């Protein structure tokens, strides 16, 4: 796919996602109520960003009093039900509208909702799903993969005392959490437990350790033991690979009742982090043997420095490739789920849920073609972006060598 087309699709996607409320909205862009100028469509975006209640109901009640109205290019919101055009109005056929300005350019669905407005607002859902799930998966996968690749099975050595101390602290924390939940606590305690345990482990390893080690060195407890990080990661990845991903998604989403976009992205990222971990691990595995890493070790650089400053910059291109493919697979996963009718609640319009309606009524070809085209275009452009980066990467490596 030509680069210009890829870039074009990405830009259009970004634009529609950012300005969805201004591109397709039944509230006007600007109007006068009682001589005062209002910007309803912009205020709606603002309320979404700041988490306030939507001004939609207020403005819809003032519909009659609006003067000097400037409407959005598509004067429909995705939820707007145009009763006059209910029952699958074709984009080519006649529509029951007052002027061309109100035409449904891509037709309507069974309830009379505008397909184009749905497409525009669906692009925002797709963007959030893609970005959030990839970022979350990247955070976990890259860190775990880097540690596993860099340290291997023996590289990360812990004092037996540290291991014992950490295990005790963690299990006590876990027990207290169980107690709290059983006794009638809330899930907030889980966060407190996690934070508290992490702090304790850190304190343990940094201060207590050094003092105790000096004290206990005569007892031979201070011998170190390698933590098999690599083994742990590989087994975990195998577990995730064993179960078909769609099955896990279906089962997880069935448990969570009507998840929001954020929960949905996090669930999808749960399935994507192994990919990031694998790529990063492979890259670190080959790079850690290179001379510049050995040189850094000889210079007594810390492990943190070598991982994040020396190796990570070289591992970014393959991670970026994985991220591009990750965005497309996250969008694919979300739209497949919405298509199957599992996942978002019915009010949340996404490309997949629009396609779901096409399944109910075969004659409405526009419901099948346009949302699918949007998904297809975005996935195609993300895939070719990934290919593009990986091609760049190979030439880049050659230049370094």
């Amino acid at each position, binding site marked *: *796919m030509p680069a210009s087309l890829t870039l074009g699709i990405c830009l259009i996607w970004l634009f529609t996602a950012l300005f969805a409320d201004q591109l397709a909205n039944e509230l006007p862009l600007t109007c006068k109520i009682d001589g005062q100028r209002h910007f309803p469509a912009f205020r709606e975006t603002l309320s979404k960003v700041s988490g306030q209640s939507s001004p939609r109901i207020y403005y819809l009640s003032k519909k009659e009093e609006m003067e000097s109205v400037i409407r959005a290019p598509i004067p429909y919101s995705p939820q707007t039900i145009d009763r006059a055009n209910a029952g699958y109005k074709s984009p080519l056929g006649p529509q029951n509208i007052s002027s061309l300005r109100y035409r449904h350019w891509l037709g309507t669905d069974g309830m009379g909702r505008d397909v184009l407005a749905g497409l525009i607002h669906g692009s925002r859902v797709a963007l959030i799903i893609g970005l959030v799930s990839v970022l979350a998966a990247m955070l976990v996968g890259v860190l775990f993969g880097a540690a596993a690749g860099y340290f291997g099975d023996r590289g990360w050595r812990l004092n037996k005392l540290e291991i014992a101390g950490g295990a005790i602290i963690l299990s006590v924390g876990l*027990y207290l959490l*169980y*107690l709290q939940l*059983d*006794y*009638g606590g809330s899930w907030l305690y889980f966060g407190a437990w996690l934070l508290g345990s992490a702090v304790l482990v850190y304190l343990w390893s940094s201060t207590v350790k050094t003092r105790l080690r000096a004290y206990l060195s005569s007892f031979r407890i201070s011998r170190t033991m390698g933590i098999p990080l690599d083994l742990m990661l590989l087994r975990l990845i195998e577990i995730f*690979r*064993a*179960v*078909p*991903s*769609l*099955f*896990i998604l*279906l*089962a997880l989403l*069935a*448990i969570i*009742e009507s998840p929001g976009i954020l929960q949905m992205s996090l669930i999808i990222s749960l399935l994507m982090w192994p990919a990031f971990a694998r790529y990063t691990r492979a890259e670190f595995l080959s790079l850690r043997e290179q001379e510049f890493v050995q040189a850094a070790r000889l210079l007594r650089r810390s492990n943190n420095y070598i991982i994040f400053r020396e190796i990570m910059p070289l591992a970014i291109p393959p991670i970026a490739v994985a991220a591009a493919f990750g965005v*497309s697979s996250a969008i*694919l996963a979300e*739209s*497949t789920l919405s*298509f*199957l*009718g*599992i996942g978002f609640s019915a009010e949340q319009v996404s490309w*997949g849920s629009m*396609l779901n309606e*096409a*399944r109910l009524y*075969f*004659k409405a*070809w526009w419901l*099948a*073609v346009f949302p*699918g085209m949007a*998904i*297809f275009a975005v*996935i*195609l452009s993300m*895939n*070719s972006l990934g290919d593009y980066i990986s091609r760049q990467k190979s030439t880049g490596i050659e230049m370094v060598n």
Partner: protein
Amino acid sequence: MSKTIPGDPAERLTGILSIEGDEHFDRGAMTNYQRTYRHLGLDKPLFYFSLHPRAREANLRDIERPAFRNNIKNLMYETGKPELVRSYFEAGKALSRAIRLHLDECDTATFWADFEHQINRASSKAEIAEITDNALLFMPDEQCGFRPFAEDWWKYADKIGSVERTFSWWLPKLSWHGTQNQYHNWLAGILSGDWGYSLRDGRSVGSKIRNSIGYTLSISFFSLLLTFAAGIPLGMFLATSKRKRWKEILRKLVYALYAVPLFWLATLLVVFFTTEEYGKWTNLFPSPSQIMLHTMDGDAGFFQGLSYLLLPVLCLASGGVAFVARQMEQTALRENTARYITMSRLKGNSESATIWKHLFPNAVFPLITLLGALIPGLISGSVVIEVIFNIPGMGRLMWDSIFGQDWNVVFAILMIGAILTLVGQLIADILYARANPKVRYD
């Protein structure tokens, strides 16, 4: 996972909406519920052992009613004396049974009915104290048949009221349950082929899956065949052909096919090619409703059945074909630069002999490893395909079961999906080891 899902399986199976919702619940429904609860083994502890605070008992699941369970748990935490609370509960149970039995013989029936109602709902020391205080004032002196039970209960209620929680209530205690636990029963059931019951119709999960797995396996098998049968020649063509224009077109097509969402492709094909809506010739394939009718009858002949599977298999294989073709092209191009190929050309072997005799065998066998990567995708894809084409296979069953909140079926299918994937990966590994003598498993 199966323990975190919303809802109570015994409620679902007995058809009771909510065992605690109705104040004046039907006693027949209640016994029915209790029987089902025990039959499903829900009264047993979850695992072989449990670690719990000293204050509470290891297993409170043998108390069937959730509200009672919660009351008892609260009382145990409040007093830190699980044995005492358990005796109190047993005494209360006996008392309430006796009251119900002898209520008609009593003149003060209203008081006792109310009394029974209250003791069943007491969930804290304060509430118990309130009941006893009130009873001291208002309890009639009449000697009914349940008087000894009331005194017995009173004894324990008094003890609970006076007991103080000791400091060690939160210390952990390990209890061993042996093999009488839910996990053991589940595992034994899985291994002996007893997968539990469907929560929707009470049929066994095993029979439901047996009826549906054939469809999924056959469409997966045929599309796997098609994937390799179409992908390998396509990849070879892309790698070795001299026809530049065709190659470009096909390469773009493969690239697009790789990105096209399965459910969109299937929907488009169904929308445009199974009806006469868009012209006489577009009615090429049987429509999903036809497929459903005939698979339900089960009287479709072999070839008829194949014709129904044609479109689903085509759709399911499409992504795999593109994937295999791209991999094939890459391996063939890589092998093409190997020295034995140059050698073959230098020897004067014809181009086709070089390609098909020397390059092809070496380029094609690494594709065996793709089997392991393709199978999870096929099984996932079968959900989408079976939903769109109304094929009553395993994916469709899972989809239906999720909407029907039939968790036993959902988790059983999840297990089978994992087993199928693992078996596929194992087969791929074994085949690869046989094809490549360099690979040896220790």
